[in-house]
């Protein structure tokens, strides 16, 4: 096992070589595929999902220098997967639009709803940076103490669930529940839903 395969929430060390980085990202292939499938709303074994997953991992390896020191790999890779999937959907839409125009010329246009579908950015993208910071701070302040501490320890201190459980002196299931509920509350406060 390559030493690089540390817990995914942890940061990668500086000066990672390409092979080690490729191995680390390959470990996260199921995660990337899940994100792509979710964004594209397609089955996990669909050819477009597979292509986009491959493309996302390729882009991650090529752009590994953009991963800032201390930045966790998994969320960074999730962002790349999301962008690749959205790009693929836009390309599919453009392709569909061209087909529809061609069919219109023939007078055999299919369902007009096909022209409407557009993978637009989620609600998080519409927030200005300042609004988002304020909304997040307010949402975090409104959380119960345990939930807030668990979420901050996970996202901002990079601790694993087990480390959080030890530090807070609560069972592992409680940590998982707190992180899940806290995240949903913060996401709802800033307009991010699982569907967006």
């Amino acid at each position, binding site marked *: 096992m390559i030493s690089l395969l540390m*817990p*995914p*929430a942890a940061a990668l060390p500086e000066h990672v070589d390409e092979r080690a980085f490729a191995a680390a990202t390959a470990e996260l292939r*199921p*995660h990337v*595929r*899940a*994100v*792509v*499938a*979710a*964004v594209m*709303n397609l*089955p*996990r074994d669909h050819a477009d999902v597979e292509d986009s997953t491959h493309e996302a991992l390729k882009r991650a390896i090529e752009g590994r220098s953009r991963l800032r020191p201390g930045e*966790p790999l*998994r*969320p960074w890779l*999730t*962002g790349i997967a*999301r962008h690749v999937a959205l790009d693929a959907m836009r390309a599919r839409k453009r392709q569909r639009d061209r087909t529809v125009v061609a069919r219109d010329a023939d007078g055999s246009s299919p369902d007009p709803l096909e022209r409407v579908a557009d993978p637009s950015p*989620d609600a*998080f993208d519409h927030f200005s*940076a300042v609004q*988002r*910071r*304020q909304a*997040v*701070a307010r949402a*975090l*302040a409104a959380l119960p103490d345990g939930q807030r501490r668990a*979420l*901050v320890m*996970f*996202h*901002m201190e990079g601790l*694993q*669930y*087990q480390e959080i*459980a*030890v530090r807070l*002196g*609560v*069972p*592992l*299931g409680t940590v*998982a*529940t707190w*992180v*899940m509920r806290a*995240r*949903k509350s*913060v*996401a709802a406060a*800033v307009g*991010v*839903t*699982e*569907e967006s």
Partner: protein
Amino acid sequence: MIEDSKLPRELVWDGAHVSELGLTAIADGQESIVPADAVAHVHSCDWCVGRMGRTALMASAVGEGLREARPALASAQAQGSRAVTNPSPWRALLLGCTVAVLAAVPSLPQLASRLGTFVTFGKVLSSHGLPVLVRGIAMASRADVSRGLQIATIVSSVLLVLMGLAIARTRSRVSSERSVS
């Protein structure tokens, strides 16, 4: 210290599929604490894969938001700690009480002469006032008198104002008679 190595199965499974909590843990890269069969199921079930992907997207967005908001959170925490270290209001209260006592010192000699009045007032209150009050509370607790209590409050307020006006008028008349004589 509490030592768990895996999440309880009843939290991880929701019927035939992996629960939201289990998906959250997997999306957060905590596969090591999720039972292996649940992890395998997620990667082989289209429904669970889609939910896990959405959970990962939400986790990523929230994590990004928290990292962006770090300066705002730090300043809010600093403000909070400053509020905690502010001098407590007890000093101001103590100062106010001291001034009040000092102001009352000139009238202390008269207090001894009025002590008898206070004792009499206390006796009258305990012998007549308190039983009336207790009876009233008992009656109010037995009956549905919410509307009656509202009316009684208004009537008693009006009575109090009228009595206050009467006392003020009497006092002013007495003082004016004294000044004339």
